[in-house]
């Protein structure tokens, strides 16, 4: 009797009706099972692997407390500058009277396609002790390794994230609000201060949280440029690599997960709800009023300088790939390309792994979005698990998969599958949210019409949604692919001798001082990435007819 009542509250009548459909039930079990196995299980494994006494011992470890303090410091510094630069770019790209705004936007997107260590690597080539610019052009002796280098590199690497979030918010500020402010007596400067930026404040806060998560979890840049400066994200790997200390590694990543999860929850459930919904009636569209000349000048200058720094990232690596011996012999050579070609197998492995991850992310994202859009039991739990990986640092997922899949019955470590699955489920939130956004565009009545005409359960998915979801698929696949092919934070934990991916090989080459080869292989990786993306878009473009007006 009691069970029946609990069951009644747990599974709604609508949910029961849906579960009576075998296809839907199968999909539900598949989705829920995948989330439990590949998201929940590794997470729990990490958290329970160290004992309570290990957790209690953390405050007594000098090195870890130092790493925690350093991580906090670099997060505060890099987040602040990245958000300020991102704000400048977002502002520049949303003012119609800003010269070069399309160019700035394009340049700002470039770092999103680069492997996470690329900015650090390039800046060592350009601004380090053997730096082309610092040493050979300016004659300076600069040590870029350490916190100051990390700060600069993370600013360049992560301001694009801030830009994307803030630009979205600024774009949505109704021009008539700015015009109304002008009309009521505000000059150009005060319009921006009291209306434009005031409205964007929640968006800026959200951007700061997103960037802070990325900075905290940043492994690639930190491992290349932080030098001997301990950080939580790199500490986990040093534990594993140097000492095979699984307990220590899981403890560190568990420690790192606390702030990233807190920031994530804050972003999703607090800032997300504080977005201002602009009241819009009908009305003819207005132009934004002109921007204050001084503000325009400052923004423009920031964008020019930062664009140069971004372009230098690519140029530095390109130069490194063709220079005989960096710092000593500046003659042109193709030798590094031979070296890189010897490692072409790693590129192939990267492609396979990333394509697999992209595919799994896109399919799982769509399936889960479809399930959580329905009155099924546990839908809020599924939704939470589908976005949870966004709160987890890459090193956490890496350690989690090692712990979860290094023994029977699921002994996957050592196979390429473990890397595919780890990358796929780490990027699941991207595929899932893309699919949710697409599904929200579909009017419920379309589905009802299909059901009314006799389509049931999974047939609705196939007949009504799948054509519309091709977009979500392309988007989910592309984002997951790019991030997987450039990933290092997970790869370092899960590559096995037969499955070395390119980023891992490059990281080793950098570590061993083979800069030319590393630069050449990085360039190849970028070419392959862009080529694959272009191909995917072209194929998708043939399949998906653009929606009218969309």
């Amino acid at each position: 009797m009691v069970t029946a009542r609990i069951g009644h509250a747990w599974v709604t009548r609508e949910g029961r009706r849906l579960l009576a459909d075998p296809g839907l039930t199968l999909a539900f079990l598949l989705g829920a099972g995948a989330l439990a196995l590949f998201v929940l299980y590794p997470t729990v494994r990490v958290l329970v692997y160290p004992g309570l006494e290990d957790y209690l011992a953390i405050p007594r470890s000098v090195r870890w407390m130092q790493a925690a303090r350093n991580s906090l410091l670099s997060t505060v510094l890099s987040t602040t500058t990245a958000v300020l630069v991102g704000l400048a770019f977002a502002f520049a790209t949303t003012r119609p009277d800003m010269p070069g705004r399309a160019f700035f936007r394009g340049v700002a997107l470039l770092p999103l396609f680069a492997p996470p260590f690329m900015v650090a690597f390039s800046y060592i080539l350009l601004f380090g002790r053997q730096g082309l610019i610092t040493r050979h052009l300016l004659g300076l002796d600069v040590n870029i390794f350490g916190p100051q280098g990390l700060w600069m590199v993370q600013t360049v690497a992560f301001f694009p994230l801030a830009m994307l979030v803030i630009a979205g918010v600024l774009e949505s500020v109704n021009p008539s609000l700015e015009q109304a402010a002008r009309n009521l007596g505000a000059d150009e400067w005060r319009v921006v201060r009291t209306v434009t930026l005031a409205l964007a404040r929640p968006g800026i806060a959200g951007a700061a949280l997103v960037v802070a998560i990325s900075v905290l979890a940043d492994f690639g840049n930190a491992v290349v440029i932080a030098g001997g400066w301990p950080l939580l994200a790199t500490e986990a790997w040093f534990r594993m690599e140097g000492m095979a200390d699984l307990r220590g590694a899981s403890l560190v990543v568990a420690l790192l997960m606390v702030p990233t999860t807190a920031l994530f929850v804050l972003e999703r459930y607090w800032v997300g709800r504080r977005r201002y919904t602009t009241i819009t009636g009908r009305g003819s569209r207005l132009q934004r009023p002109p921007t204050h000349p001084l503000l325009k000048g400052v923004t423009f200058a920031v964008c020019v300088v930062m664009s140069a720094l971004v372009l230098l990232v690519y140029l530095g690596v390109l130069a490194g790939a063709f220079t005989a011996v960096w710092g000593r012999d500046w003659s042109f050579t193709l030798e590094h390309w031979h070296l890189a070609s010897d490692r072409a197998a790693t590129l192939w492995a990267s492609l396979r792994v990333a394509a697999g991850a992209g595919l799994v992310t896109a399919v799982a994202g769509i399936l889960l979005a479809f399930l959580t859009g329905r009155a099924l039991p546990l839908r809020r739990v599924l939704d939470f698990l589908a976005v949870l990986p966004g709160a987890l640092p890459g090193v956490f997922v890496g350690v989690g998969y090692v712990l979860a899949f290094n023994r029977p019955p699921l002994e996957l470590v050592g196979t390429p599958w473990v890397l595919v699955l780890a990358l796929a489920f780490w990027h699941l939130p991207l595929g899932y949210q893309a699919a949710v956004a697409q599904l929200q565009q579909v009017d419920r009545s379309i589905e009802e019409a299909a059901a009314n005409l006799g389509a049931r359960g999974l047939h609705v998915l196939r007949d009504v949604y799948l054509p519309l979801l091709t977009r979500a698929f392309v988007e989910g696949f592309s984002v997951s692919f790019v991030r997987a092919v450039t990933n290092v934070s997970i790869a370092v934990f899960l590559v096995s001798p037969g499955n070395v991916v390119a980023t891992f090989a490059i990281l080793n080459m950098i570590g061993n001082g083979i800069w030319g080869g590393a630069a050449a292989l990085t360039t190849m990786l970028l070419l392959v990435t862009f080529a694959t993306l272009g191909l995917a878009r072209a194929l998708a473009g043939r399949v998906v007819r653009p929606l009218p007006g969309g």
Partner: protein
Amino acid sequence: MAAHLRLAEVTKRFGPTVAVDRVSLEIEEGSFFTLLGPSGCGKTTLLRVVAGFHLPDRGEVYLRERRITHLPPHLRGTAMVFQEYALFPHMTVEENVAYGLRMRRVPAAEVRARVARVLELVGLVGQERKYPHQLSGGQQQRVALARALVVEPEVLLLDEPLSNLDAKLRVRVREELRELQRRLGQTTVYVTHDQEEALALSDRIGVMNEGRVLQVGTPEEIYLRPKNRFVAEFVGLANFLEGYWVSPGVVRTATGDLRVGQGAALGGRALLAVRPEEVRLHRGAPEGAVNLLRGRVRSVTFLGSVRRCTVELDGVSWVVDVRGEESVRPAEEVYLEVPPDRARVVEEG
């Protein structure tokens, strides 16, 4: 008395389209002036030229004979109520209304007093701390009005402010707006496509089409003495008859000769406009009536106070309104009587 707001030969182009075409207007102090026209006629563009959002390509704008054509919007004293209200979503009602005063650096104590006064004026006392999204459409509209009024603008500009309200509320707010404007003696320029609104609110109306002001006059003049076909058709309904003058006061049409109140050059072409409610409909030929047209009723629509009949004349169909209680049936043979003083001569176009 000199005009409060004066436009001289204002022209505004967007690319190849001429949105406002050589418009000259004079608006008296304390008066309620309406720009009336269909969508895309340039009335909103003209309002924005006055507000300073658009720089006219040619022509000048004068406020009390001071040239303000190139003055930036925030220095003009032309507070505007936007069609979509444009309330700041991150500010409370109070903050929204105080915004213009803060921008003018009015002392805080005075800001409080003036905001309180204007909120009382528009009936929003008690809503000070709410945010726009917590208000109904009608309340939002009042906040927008209060925000514009509180700065005591030289000229108040209203851009279709009632178009987002439902029909009943629109009529009520309309009356309140008119009453408030009279009480404050606030010079007002109002933009609408709704002819009923324009007639009910305005001291004077400027009817616009395709960027041009076609006629300026009091509501009575616009309705009873439209100058051309467009004004007659856009403000109210009108039946048209084409013909030419055969003698002073007589126009020959395809349906017969009509006596009209006005005279004009013999032999010239004439276009007559007659309102549906001014035509008398008879079942049989009335004794001693002039201007009788024979026709056949095609359809009848009952609209409550009136019955709207479509009557087929020789080749043209007219709209004729009769009182609701009169019974007219389709296919009936009827006579239409047009009183000479109601057959107005209007210009083509």
